[in-house]
């Protein structure tokens, strides 16, 4: 097993280097000038050229890449052009904010998803099933930035119940799960939760339907077990798959959502990426994409290892 893990780690290295090259090139081949982030818009061409040299953007791309890569493997993601702050600290803060939002959203999605799924699965083909399934289909098909805007219009602009933007009364500094901060997370978390809710609900519905049709359920009922007892058995059987799906959905959401975070000005990775793109802040953009990409590389590695540990037959060469 240890050898397998080491082997997988060796395989990951070229992938990681490849990812870093793609990150670097992607942001350099896109149109726009990184210096626009720091120069006043009426600066002259002369000053622009001087600044280009000062920031090293006049060097050939391979040289720029090598310099950047050298710093990255030493843990330095560089300095944001637009803010002059270290990229690592900016990305770190954003990751923690996205983590707060996506775990909350996953919890909400899981709670409602399993609830609707069980209801639909238990009362298959009844109007309750149609209603619950309808909600989950809506969940996966509604564009969530649209939903976010509608929620803002209703609950913030019209009713004035919940704040429409930001992570807390004083920004994200000192975030804690108290009421004042929870008010800020409700709208973005609900918006973000509709997709996992839809996915989990549909999976659970199918699972519950399958389990209810299995012979052991009939046997339980034949032995005279009450409906509550049967329900407990169904839950126990459905839980592993539902939890696995929830884990996957959490993985997706941790990548951050540019649209939702921008609509709600939630200071996570999606919001940071959006700002970096608009400001042509290359170091910040490279750093954020690299961290997110590495996150997925690590996630895949962990999944592979865990899967192999659970079932040695699927060991990948």
């Amino acid at each position, binding site marked *: 097993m240890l050898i397998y893990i080491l082997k997988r780690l060796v395989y990951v290295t070229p992938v990681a280097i490849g990812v870093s090259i793609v990150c670097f090139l992607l942001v350099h081949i896109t149109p726009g000038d990184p210096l626009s982030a720091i120069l*006043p818009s009426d600066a*002259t061409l002369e000053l622009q050229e001087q600044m280009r040299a000062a920031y090293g953007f006049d060097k050939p791309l391979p040289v720029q890449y090598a310099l950047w890569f050298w710093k990255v493997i030493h843990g330095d993601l560089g300095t944001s052009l637009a803010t002059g702050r270290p990229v690592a600290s900016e990305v770190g803060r954003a990751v923690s904010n996205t983590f707060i939002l996506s775990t909350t959203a996953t919890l909400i999605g899981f709670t409602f998803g399993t609830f609707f799924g069980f209801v639909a699965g238990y009362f298959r083909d009844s109007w309750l099933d149609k209603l619950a399934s309808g909600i989950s289909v809506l969940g996966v098909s509604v564009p969530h930035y649209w939903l976010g805007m509608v929620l803002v219009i209703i609950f913030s602009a019209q009713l004035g119940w919940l704040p429409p933007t*930001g992570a807390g009364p004083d920004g994200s500094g000192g975030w804690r799960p108290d009421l004042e901060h929870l008010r800020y997370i409700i709208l973005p978390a609900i918006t973000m939760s509709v997709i996992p809710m839809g996915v989990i609900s549909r999976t659970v519905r199918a699972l519950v339907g399958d389990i209810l049709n299995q012979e052991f359920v009939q046997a339980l009922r034949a032995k005279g077990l009450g409906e509550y007892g049967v329900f407990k058995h169904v839950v126990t059987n459905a839980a592993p798959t539902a939890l696995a799906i929830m884990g996957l959905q959490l993985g997706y959401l941790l990548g951050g959502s540019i649209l939702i975070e921008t609509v709600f*000005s939630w200071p996570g990775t999606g919001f940071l990426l959006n700002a970096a793109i608009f400001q042509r802040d290359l170091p910040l953009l490279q750093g954020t994409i690299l961290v997110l990409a590495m996150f997925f590389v690590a996630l895949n590695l962990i999944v592979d290892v865990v899967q192999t540990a659970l079932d040695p037959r699927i060991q990948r060469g």
Partner: protein
Amino acid sequence: MKTTRLTAALAVLAFALAGSAAHAQGTLRIGMTASDIPLTTGQADNGGEGMRFMGYTVYDGLINWDLSSATKPSDLVPGLAVSWSVDEADKTKWIFKLREGVKFHDGSDFTAESAVWNLEKLLNDKSPQYDPRQSAQGRTRIPAVASFKAIDKYTLEITTKVPDATLPYQIAWIMMSSPTQFEKVGKTWEAFAKTPSGTGPWKLTLFIPRERAEMVPNADYWDKARVPKLDKLVLVPLPEANARVAALRSGQVDWIEAPPPDAVPSLTQAGFKIVTNAYPHNWTWHLSRVEGSPWNDIRVRKAANLAIDREDMKELLSGLMIPAEGFFPPGHQWFGHPTFKLKHDVEEAKKLLAEAGYGPGKPLKTKILISASGSGQMQPLPMNEFVQQNLAEVGIQVEFEVVDWNTLINIWRAGAKHDSARGATGMNYTYFIQDPFTGFIRHLQCNLAPPAGTNWGYYCDPEMDKLFDQVRNTFDKEKQTAILQKIHEKYVDDALFLMVTHDVNPRAMSAKVKGFVQAQNWFQDFSPITMSK
């Protein structure tokens, strides 16, 4: 299990809704259009908005802008310098008498040495306090400065490269940060940014990058009349226009910059104030004067200016514009008395075009660069299409090359002759026109063609250059104004730009905001504002 979870969630929701936030009295929260808190170290970034909120609030210039009047264009007033004058014998030598007894927020004294230290922070890359970020912002603002020195504790001497009477306008850009605080925080601007210290009416107390900045009044401010009345001023970056409107409507902020025009009617209906005023901004087509450009013919330039129905365009923008009567907004002290009136006259325009050799059988075809959106660009797509339609009516067929705003800026720097201009003969560009240099000189002085400057169209007229020289060499304020008027008259009478409109800098605010005077300026004063309960 399900039900308990649900009940818990509902309880949290109910609590959250009940606890609607109670805000401290006298706190003004502003939603900015910038996506980050502007640079806090002194020379702010994020253009005019950055200087408005993070420049003239925490800091002062040696010279400040008088932002107390809404009815007349603002002018310069003494700031950290009480007076300034040019040496009669050597017109490149300026003496600034500095204000005594001024203290930075950290308690240290402001002296001539501090002023020198601050100029070095921008211009001397060998000095320990040199800051490339502030330098990028500030250096272009003081092109005239050659050298500087402290004569005594409260006297500063600045020498210019050539005689230049516009120096005071340039110096008004430069913000004074505290050298003592810089030493105290370990001589790095990164640390200084978190705990900045200036001499301005506001002290920065909280700074969370990209999210929030908070300021409290500087009770010891040297200008007692401008000690802020509020308890606190909060800045929140909200780059997304709809998010800004939602934040205002839900009471999360009390004031937003640049509400989208289509949100204005509903905001007014909901009881919010829309504050607008003229300010030195224009929305023009900068015309190329490179050989072969049709705009080299004054009749074509005049015809285009007469073709635009500016009143109709105003309706398109829900009234949020001032129709252009010249390059500067009507009523500006440099407007003068141009004879060419920018009216809507299709017949006259057709006649002029016919004289220039164009007509129904031979329309004038040309290409113009425009952007899809951008800072200060107002609503470039519908507005340019409107202009295109107007021009088509008189026989000028315009084809647009639409590029992203940052690309347009780079093409503007590179000049009309550069390949990146793609053979276009004009570009839609909006200008910050606050002083003689940004207002006139940089656009049309012969030797400021790219790469040395931003005379995009390579215009060159010795007569205009002579007027620019006169402005630089006229140190008497009234006489200088008369020359600036003459320059503006030439701008209009020679129809040097396609002059379309001026923005009115709209901002929307809660009815609780009292005492705000919207100066005719890019910068504003937050000191007189109070919040009613």
